[in-house]
């Protein structure tokens, strides 16, 4: 069964450093998303991506964040100059239009 894969599963970084979280969405999906979840709490939307551009972003997704689909298969989230409060589980998801989204297993980001 096709699945969304995310790497790494766990990333520890120093405050102020840049991190890149990687995702391989399901191949025939057209919509891609990043969400984050702090300490098993609410799942917060960060950004959606369609047709090689951002279609929607939340207030959380400020200039510190960026997304790319560099090669037609990978979908990356870059966080520049990480802060302690960026520590969270980051989930990538993909979907076909209005159907269900499929989520990866997440990357646990720890900023120290």
């Amino acid at each position: 069964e096709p699945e969304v894969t995310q790497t790494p599963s766990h990333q520890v970084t120093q405050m102020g450093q840049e991190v890149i979280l990687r995702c391989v969405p399901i191949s025939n999906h057209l919509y891609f998303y990043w969400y984050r979840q702090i300490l098993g709490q609410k799942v917060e939307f960060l950004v959606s991506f369609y047709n090689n551009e951002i279609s929607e972003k939340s207030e959380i997704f400020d200039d510190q964040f960026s997304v790319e689909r560099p090669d037609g298969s990978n979908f990356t989230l870059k966080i520049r100059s990480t802060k302690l409060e960026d520590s969270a589980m980051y989930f990538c998801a993909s979907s076909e239009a209005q159907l269900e989204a499929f989520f990866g297993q997440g990357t646990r980001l720890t900023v120290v």
Partner: protein
Amino acid sequence: AQSVAQPEDQVNVAEGNPLTVKCTYSVSGNPYLFWYVQYPNRGLQFLLKYITGDNLVKGSYGFEAEFNKSQTSFHLKKPSALVSDSALYFCAVRDMQRGNKLVFGAGTILRVKS
């Protein structure tokens, strides 16, 4: 804006008893509704969806949900709970006007005791 509410932080039920996890929604236009389950240190796993059609939708692991338009609800149900159903459950609505994103409720912890 589209939103969902899960009024219960936690639901406790005895194994073998029926369970209900509540969700209400607020949307403009037709609702596209979903339930997801999350086990500890895992991603979100799709359970079921309502797009159109029958108000009672069936999903994975014996779960079902009832769509009620007049009450704007989409409660998750299972006739007989298992201890292994213990997890965090999220209701979500798709926002077709804003990037097709899923908007999640706050989540409900389900604890099934043997």
